[in-house]
């Protein structure tokens, strides 16, 4: 562990380590308990590797009954529990504590029901995001939220983080595409929330639980809405001479009344890194690139693209290109969706920010980030969901140099503070986790935090579930 303070392990739990492991072995099949030091190591972190902590044990339950047993067992012994999906969190959401049991849900990966007439699917938490779409694609359907990590991230984690994606501009984020959940509380009680119908009666538990980052319980089942795919989709690329001009173009598009399915932004370093990975034909001479996608029949696409071209042309684009084939569109998205990893080609380490700003402040905020980048002497690649103002500045640093990481952390905090000051928020889709925990005070007052903590108190009175995340210590 570096910089970020962590909760001290409970001595009484650490002292009972072998007893706890033996207890877990009693209630779970042998292959479901991992307790060897060597084997625990790869579970010490998620996709934010700057924070690491080897847990006390890892368990991999195979069904809800096992999850219930594990939670009852842990609650009885005051043992902390870290729910984990695919471990792709970018905010340390699945970071263990030394005295915690990590509950990995990846073995609960079955699709339980698909209903086309009523347009929903019931899946276990370990089903990957793209796995849902793949399961219904033959019938022409898809599951709309599409985080760039969709190949790997799991629906349980998506609900945990209320994940978004490039196509959320039109289709909404995870919370807008759910119908029901099953949640096991820390006391081992199974709550059924919602169902296969819209809008549950009573409080919106579904809304509260979505994005709660594993604070309220462990999800064992998720009912998602599935949608019929449009007739077709086409992406277009527009390169601009500066970040600001591209930002103005985004505002002009939204103001014109056209809501594209996706409206994504990349700056020059990002364009270069992604092109090296995807060979999508991104314009290497542009300072900023917009990826704009429209849907519908061939004619509808052409019509929309025509309107969008007209708008882009007002901003003197350095290049404009419409994908001619599905393969070209796929390559364009492959580059965008592989963007974070692709930055690994130009820098060994990065911190990915996730602030949101009002879109009208785009140009100004990007300029400020550029200035900070110069001041901190750290490069930044900007990749983000421009349509909804969700920024992902990737701060490049060298993890083998502690000073560089400390600088990167400060730089990140400054960017997020700027986002809040500009009228936005700390995180649009990646969550608070451990990374932004201490910044919560920038956005919320003490009484607001207290009100949130009170919800945690209700669901998890001992604060055993994923503690030391979300709320400042």
């Amino acid at each position, binding site marked *: 562990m570096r910089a970020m303070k962590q909760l001290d392990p409970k001595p009484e739990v650490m002292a009972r380590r072998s007893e706890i492991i033996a207890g877990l072995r009693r209630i779970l099949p042998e292959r479901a308990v991992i307790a060897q030091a060597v084997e625990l190591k790869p579970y010490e972190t998620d996709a934010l590797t700057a924070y690491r902590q080897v847990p006390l044990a890892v368990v991999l339950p195979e069904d809800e009954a096992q999850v219930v047993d594990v939670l009852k067992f842990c609650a009885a012994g005051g043992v902390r529990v870290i729910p984990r999906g695919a471990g792709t969190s970018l905010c340390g959401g699945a970071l263990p504590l030394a005295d915690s049991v990590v509950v990995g849900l990846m073995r609960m990966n079955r699709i339980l029901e698909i209903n086309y007439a009523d347009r929903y699917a019931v899946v276990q938490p370990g089903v990957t995001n793209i796995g849902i779409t793949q399961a219904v694609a033959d019938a022409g359907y898809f599951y709309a939220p599409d985080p760039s990590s969709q190949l790997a991230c799991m629906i349980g984690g998506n609900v945990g983080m209320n994940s978004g994606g490039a196509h959320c501009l039109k289709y909404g984020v995870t919370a807008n595409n759910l119908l029901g959940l099953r949640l096991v509380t820390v006391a081992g009680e199974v709550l059924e929330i919602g*169902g296969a119908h819209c809008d549950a009666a009573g409080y919106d538990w579904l*809304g509260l639980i979505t994005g709660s980052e594993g604070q309220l319980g462990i999800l064992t089942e998720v009912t998602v809405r599935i949608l019929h795919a449009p007739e077709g989709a086409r992406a277009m690329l527009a390169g601009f001479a500066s970040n600001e001009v591209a930002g103005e173009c985004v505002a002009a598009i939204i103001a014109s*009344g056209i809501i594209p399915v996706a409206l994504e932004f990349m700056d020059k370093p990002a364009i270069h890194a992604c092109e090296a990975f995807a060979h999508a034909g991104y314009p290497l001479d542009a300072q900023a690139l917009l990826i704009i996608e429209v849907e519908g029949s061939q004619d509808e696409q052409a*019509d929309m693209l025509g309107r969008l071209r007209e708008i882009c042309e007002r901003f003197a684009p350095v290049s404009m290109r419409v994908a001619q084939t599905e393969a070209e569109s796929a390559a364009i998205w492959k580059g965008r969706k592989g963007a974070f990893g692709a930055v690994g080609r130009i820098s060994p380490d990065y911190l990915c920010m996730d602030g949101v700003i009002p879109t009208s402040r785009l140009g100004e905020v990007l300029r400020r980030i550029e200035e900070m980048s110069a001041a901190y002497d750290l490069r930044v690649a900007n990749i983000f969901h421009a349509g909804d103002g969700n920024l992902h500045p990737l701060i490049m640093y060298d993890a083998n140099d502690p000073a560089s990481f400390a600088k990167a952390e400060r730089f990140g905090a400054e960017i997020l503070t700027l986002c809040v000051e500009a009228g936005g928020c700390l995180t649009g889709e990646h969550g608070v986790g451990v990374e932004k925990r201490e910044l919560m005070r920038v956005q919320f007052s003490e009484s607001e935090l207290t009100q949130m903590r009170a*919800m945690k108190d209700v669901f998890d009175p001992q604060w055993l579930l994923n503690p030391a995340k979300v709320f400042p210590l």
Partner: protein
Amino acid sequence: MVVESGEGVSVVSARVDAALPGGVIVPRDEAELAGVVRDASAPMLVQGNGTKAGMLRPGRAAAVLSTAGMSGITLYSPSELVMRARAGTALAEIEAALAAHGQQMIAEPSHLFGEAQTIGGVVAANVSGPRRISGGAMRDHVLGLRAVNGSGEILNFGGRVLKNVTGLDLTKLLTGSFGTLAVITEVTFKVLPVAGAVGTIVVRVADAQAAVAVMSAGLGSPFSVSGAAYLPGSREVYLRVEDFAESVAYRCGRLAGQFAGAEILGSGESKALWLSIRDCEALPPGEAMWRVSVRPSAGPGVLRDVAFAGVTGFLDWGGGLVWLSGPATHEAHEAVCAAARTGGGVWWLMRGPEALRAVVEVMPPEAPALAALRRQVVAKFDPRGIFNPLKMWAA
């Protein structure tokens, strides 16, 4: 602070305030409201203009706390698709301001409750219209809200940006909580441009079952159907498409091609039709009114199962939303509850005489574990139990 009592209050439905010794308290701003709450010593009915006072359980309180004195749009940025308004702002005012910029509320909240309903009330009751199935419910578009909790603390959750996962989503928890947790004082929500054109496919069918088949085919098509309703009276299914005129023409054509004898309505007729569906104009007048949400394929079963009790209605949301009206009897109510249960869904008693509303389950009861959590959640927001007690649940 304005404290009014007696007959002269225009903003509160007379029926409610008549019997209240504490009268109607109408704070002019949030700070004042927080002060009222801090000083309160007895339960209060929390409302905007009280248009939904007849929904769910009848309130029992000494006074009415109304947000009607806090009105006005405080932020509107059309290019960012965001509007913010004080809770007491009339829905009509909001809709007019949006229309002036060619924009609209995505969930198209129903005007069933009359012209006086406030944005705070629309959010607190999570009122959504036909577009809920494609564009989402009111709860999906509330980006942020300010509220005063039962301790009189002013809280601000969410924000004004389109995406936000910072902290627990108490915005969603408060949306649809009927003023039982906190008094919403200001709401920020997402809006969208009004589509250039609207088209409707009208398909005549034999019964509700066939209607749902048509609606499922429409909603399961690639043509972005944004409304799907069935009126048993006319035996007509309506499928709505909203987009640029060329798109609407094309998609209506493709959709109509799927169903023998389908007719296409143009923009003008379509708009009027969907307003009438939104506002339940086709619902026969009855002493009581319910709303049932089930999976779409279960909608026809609900209609069938309640008929014996003299309850009738129509289907929206592709069959998933059943609007019902009928006699305000226990028998009718039980029939609705049973039908919703059989369909695996939920019900709300939307309107009815106090005598009925006070004694029946106006919504399905929660499982015991959830009810226990809910009681604790209420206590954390409103420890003294002063906001709308018993509005949603008897205990």
